[in-house]
């Protein structure tokens, strides 16, 4: 189970083409990642909205195949 870091980055990039995406595999098991996403799209949005946008980009993989994604969002 789990997802490859490249797959996570690709899915996020598909929804946020301008984004700077950094993925870190925290434990090396393909199951616990930290992601930083920096995109103009977040401007004016609350933290909850920003994270919801990223979760939407991951299309239902959160809490399923992807147990742990520590998420940080920001605007450039």
């Amino acid at each position, binding site marked *: 189970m789990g997802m490859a870091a490249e797959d996570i980055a690709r899915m996020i990039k598909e929804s946020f083409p301008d984004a700077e995406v950094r993925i870190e595999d925290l434990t090396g098991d393909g199951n616990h990642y930290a992601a930083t996403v920096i995109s103009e799209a977040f401007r004016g949005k609350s*933290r*909850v909205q920003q*994270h*919801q946008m990223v*979760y939407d980009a991951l299309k*239902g993989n*959160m*809490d399923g195949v992807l147990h*742990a994604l*520590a*998420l*940080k969002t920001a605007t450039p």
Partner: protein
Amino acid sequence: MSAQDVQDWIGKQVAGNDVVLFMKGTKAMPQCGFSMQVAQILQHLGVDFKDINVLEDMSVREGVKAYSNWPTIPQLYVKGEFIGGCDIVREMFQAGELQELLTAKGVAHNKQALTA
């Protein structure tokens, strides 16, 4: 309970308690590191909160995700408002924003508690 009953039940918990944490396990015995972090932050701030163990009821576990359009547990609600999950609560706590929010919403907490 039907899906609608579950949504109504969740709504009642969130409306009837100033601070509600949907978590895996209980505040006394968290079953997941992320749930534990949020419970610890609230306890550190001396906030009285209701803990709801989603592992006890699969319909609540799935229902609360639909309720807030948020895919993960834990979920923190203050005065009826969804505040966020572990990452957001930790970020807000470290920035002092969680303490400001509690003050703004009139939720009793220990104002002398140190930030991380």
